[in-house]
């Protein structure tokens, strides 16, 4: 098979798509897919790749792949994929779960995305999520698209309350022992995400040197500025040291070393 940036390459050969209302009931079937993970732990990878070079983006994928060797829980992020004008992959944070899942047994890669625009079929029936060519990420096991009714649109943070509730339910009802978040780069939405997980006292890991909102939050912590994240569940790891992240994940029970 000729694999392109549009090819479904997860182990089941299909990406299950679910649609949920932002204020509606929780998506039971989507949430159950997570229980197929070998380990009952879940990590949300939040952030973006703005101002990053092509090489930076590739290095980011390798950073996570090295840190997460042996991880076998749920890897959870935004659900989108971007292509270049030539139809090649433009790597983003949302490619991390699928990339790492291909290298480790037992991972379930899940994504969520808000409906920010009208969906359409384009070209060879490509499912496009907005006016910028954004697609569902074909490396995920399942994707949840969150909308506010059939006509309204949401901002890019429209899925955040839903995915936080989902993580809470995994923890409260499905026996997930640990849930947490790793933040890379990102803007205002990412900041809202890492503040939300830190407020819940979940392990919240900021990657130093990744850029923008994540680095701003680290500077605030270091400078002891008003509003800085606090608590012994908030961690900072440098992007040059994936093994430090790995050790942190081991120490917090996300990676089991037997």
């Amino acid at each position, binding site marked *: 098979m000729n694999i392109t940036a549009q090819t479904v390459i997860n182990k089941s050969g299909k990406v299950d798509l679910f649609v949920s209302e932002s204020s509606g*009931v929780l998506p039971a079937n989507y949430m*159950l897919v997570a229980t*197929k993970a070998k380990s009952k732990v879940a990590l949300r990878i939040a952030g973006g790749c703005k101002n990053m070079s092509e090489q930076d983006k590739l290095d980011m994928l390798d950073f996570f792949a090295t840190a997460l060797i042996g991880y076998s829980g749920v890897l959870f992020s935004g659900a989108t994929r971007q292509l270049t004008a030539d139809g090649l992959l433009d790597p983003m944070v949302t490619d991390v779960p699928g990339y790492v899942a291909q290298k480790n047994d037992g991972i379930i890669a899940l994504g969520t995305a808000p409906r920010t625009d009208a969906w359409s079929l384009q070209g060879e029936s490509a499912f496009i999520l907005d006016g910028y060519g954004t697609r569902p990420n074909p490396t995920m096991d399942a994707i949840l698209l969150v909308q506010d009714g059939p006509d309204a649109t949401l901002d890019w943070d429209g899925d955040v309350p839903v995915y936080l509730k989902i993580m809470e339910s995994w923890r*409260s*009802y*499905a*026996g997930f022992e640990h849930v947490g978040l790793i933040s890379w780069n990102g803007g205002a939405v990412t900041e809202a995400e890492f503040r939300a997980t830190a407020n819940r006292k979940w392990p919240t890991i900021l990657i130093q040197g990744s850029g923008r909102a994540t680095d701003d939050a680290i500077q605030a912590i270091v400078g002891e500025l008003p509003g800085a994240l606090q608590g012994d569940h908030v961690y900072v790891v440098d992007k040059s040291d994936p093994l430090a992240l790995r050790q942190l994940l081991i120490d917090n029970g996300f990676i089991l070393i037997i």
Partner: protein
Amino acid sequence: MFDSPVVPKSFFMNVGENSANIALSLTVAKEKVIVRITGGCGYMSVEDANGLYDLYSQAFSGFNGVMLFGGTRMVSRIDRNTVIPGITEVVPRIKHENPGCVVLGVVPRTEDVKLDTTYGFIISDDNNPWITIPHPDQDFFVIVQRSVDQSADWNDEWQECYNVTKRLRTYCDWTSLLIAYNGGGVTEKEILTIAAAGWPVLLVNGGGRKTDEYAANEEFLAAHPNVRVCEKNVRDFRNTLIEMGILLGFRKSLNLQVVNGGKINLREYINYEHNSTNSNK
């Protein structure tokens, strides 16, 4: 002060609703197997009831999956500590002997429920000599109703069990089994629905009524290879469960009834059986 009645964790839902949290709660079971116990045995004697309890308890020894059942207990109106025998006592006994399994009761709200200082949560309090309460020995139960103003009917129980089972089978690769014993028209509908879906069904022959009718219906069995029949004895019941992949890690036993001079010390035997299986891997 009175002794507080035990009421397990409870959910309430309308027919047609999907509950993520109920489904997720089942996934804490050690093994991805869900068994629905259906049927009836109204008005049976204490002796018959004990025989039925022993049959199920021994057949399911070592079970670590999920069980769905009616979720209720009938107690005497005169003395709340006197339990009226019934098939809904079967699953809590299995749970008691197999703490690794998870038990969900699905209770249709067929009339208004109420709280009572003696009985706690009362499901049904019509003019019978007994009162129906949530069974205290289950992990949690869900009350199903059509709406606040509209009660459920008895079909809603098995239909909700069907929905939960379908979700686990479809989205997280669980194995399922419907076990029918005795029962009337509602049980018949459940047997026919699950058989038509192609999911595994086990008819325990010898308890009477609809289950026995279908166990003897060769045309029905030939048309549904997913439906198996076992006899009402521990050996055949347990061996069939093992063959159907419900008791993971155990192997079929040919000598169950001769252990301990004909009287089974099942706990010892199961340990032997399990260890032998593991050593053969």
